[in-house]
């Protein structure tokens, strides 16, 4: 069986390699849904003659699973979140960008040039950064929303009308903030409390959905939605009377990064595209579309002026800290998986 699989994989690799050789001037992107404006891709094609193909995914974990199940070698670039960059590097799924290969590397903002998830930016460049918290429909609820109680212990008006992201990482990180315990805690009492709190909170939730997180707020199907800041801004612009909260207990911060994948079939095109995205004008176009923040210097002049004053981008004075999702050890991750199953069983 094993040898059969191996020879099968080898045969497949050969075919892929053969088709890659003929694929001059192509770029295959593996990206989040609704995160890349077509104009930016068109502009890249116009400038370089490189044709871009894009497949999309709806969670870091789905992307990892697909790459590990054999899609590695078909894509040049992917856009994992912060913690997923370190996981992918640990799994050996990333290629290293040699010094001097990226001529625009100096454009990376100083505070993002050497992040803990990719020291020295060996595999990645910044794409967008922002926060994950939640938004509340102000037609339904007028009270204080700057607390994680809104998600886990909501007032009566909101109970049963809450959409959570269908993502273990985001939900458990938020839950840890709610309980005031560290992420990936190994303390058994804290883990038990986390389990009990989430299982109890489920009765207040109407659905788990990530890719319709914006749409359920716009349609009014949900009165509260766990959501990313830029997505909340879009929902507000589409007519939902919602307010994005920065809870006093804290919120999830994140940065998505463009990574160079191992065995990229069009490595040269990939490097060109990374350089392209490090030019302020181009990444600003992405920011104007996605409404998050770029990690590149000099973008300000190209940004839509209304973005700077957007309420979703400006935490209030009493907002808690923004924390990145941590990568748990295997033992803790097993307990986290068990908790997630208990919540969704």
């Amino acid at each position, binding site marked *: 069986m094993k040898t059969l699989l191996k020879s099968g994989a080898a045969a497949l690799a050969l075919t892929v390699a053969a088709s890659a050789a003929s694929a001059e001037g192509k770029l295959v992107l593996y990206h989040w849904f609704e995160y890349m404006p077509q104009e930016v891709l068109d502009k890249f094609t116009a400038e370089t003659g490189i044709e871009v193909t894009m497949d999309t995914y709806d969670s870091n974990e789905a992307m990892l699973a697909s790459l590990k199940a054999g899609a590695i070698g078909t894509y040049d670039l992917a856009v994992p979140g912060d913690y997923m960059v370190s996981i992918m590097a640990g799994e050996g799924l990333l290629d290293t960008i040699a010094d001097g290969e990226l001529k625009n590397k100096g454009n990376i903002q100083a505070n993002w040039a050497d992040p803990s998830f990719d020291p020295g930016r060996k595999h990645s460049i910044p794409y967008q950064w922002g926060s994950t918290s939640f938004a509340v429909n102000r037609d339904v609820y007028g009270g204080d929303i700057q607390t994680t109680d809104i998600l886990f212990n909501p007032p009566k008006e909101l109970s049963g009308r809450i959409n959570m992201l269908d993502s273990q990482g985001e939900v458990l990180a938020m839950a840890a903030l709610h309980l005031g315990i560290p992420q990936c805690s190994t303390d058994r009492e804290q883990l038990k409390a986390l389990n009990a709190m989430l299982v109890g909170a489920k009765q207040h939730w*109407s659905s788990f959905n990530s890719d319709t997180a914006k749409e359920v707020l716009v349609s009014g199907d949900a009165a509260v939605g766990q959501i990313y800041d830029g997505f909340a801004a879009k929902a507000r612009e589409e007519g939902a009377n919602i307010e994005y909260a920065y809870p006093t207990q804290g919120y999830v911060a994140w940065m998505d990064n463009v990574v160079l994948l191992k065995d990229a079939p069009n490595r040269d095109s990939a490097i060109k595209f990374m350089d392209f995205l490090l030019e302020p004008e181009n990444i600003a176009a992405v920011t104007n579309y996605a409404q998050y923040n770029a990690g590149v210097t000099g973008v300000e002049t190209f940004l839509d002026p209304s973005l700077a004053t957007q309420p979703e981008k400006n935490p209030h004075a009493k907002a808690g800290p923004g924390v990145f999702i941590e990568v748990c050890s295997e033992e803790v*991750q097993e307990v986290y998986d068990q908790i997630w199953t208990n919540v*969704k069983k």
Partner: protein
Amino acid sequence: MAGGAASGGSATTDTYKEARTWLLMPAWVTLSILVLAPVAMMLVYSFLTKEFRGGVIWEFSLAAYDQFFCDRGLFGDEPCTIEWTYLQIFWRSIWQAGTATLLSLAIGFPTAYFIATRPEHTRPMWVFLITIPYWVNLLIRTVSMKFLLRDQGPLNDFLINIGLIDSPIHIVNTNFAVQLGLFYSYLPFMVLPIYAAVERYNFSLSEAAADLYATKWVTLRRVLLPAVKPGVIAGCILVFVPSMGSFLAPDLLGGAKNFMIGSLIEEQFKGNAGNWPFGAAASMILMTMVLVLLLLYARQQARAEKAEG
């Protein structure tokens, strides 16, 4: 699918006896590559050790089956007690699929009967009409269904406008919505086999029953139903089996709040859990259940044929 009537004349079989092996080759090769190999792979994977964050280590392990049947507490270090979690998820899926099947039968049988009793030249048109919605992708149909049923959707608007209800009925994100979605997704699989059976039915039998003073109800129950039973059972299996493994309807219409077998398995491959052997084991257990069901059906068929002589 083991159909009811296996009526190929023996003469035909003999004609091609020489070439039979070769003629069957394409079918065998296709089946081996597309069915046997993946299933064998799943079976092997379910007995391997899981690799953290997806993948397998090539070491024999029963951990996946242990996880399915043994509850060892939140930290996995307590003695084994019966694990109800996954059995509960399986039961939920069976119940949802069963309800959807009954709904399909209730609507599908009269529909099939209606089509089969139309004048012969119009029947293809009716069958065609049944299949038209299924030219559209299942995902799109399920999302459309959600739009129709939502609180601010056309259905609720209509009911409020005609004054039947005052506030919207919550249908989306309930079990009922899931059943409705499954019913809608797989209805033609019920209609078509029953239609095929009813079309072959000799209606003079019904007339004979009526001549013998049988009421319409008795004729339906004792004459028509036994004659078309293979079609009904085939229809039920064709709706029930895909409903059990489905995850589109539970995710989109049920709000993904409760795992169904399909979404539980999906989570093992696509979600955080990344536990491939467990996903494979759950698939194997599901498949065993379905196979047992099909075997029971086949045995019942064989017995019925024997009884007929």
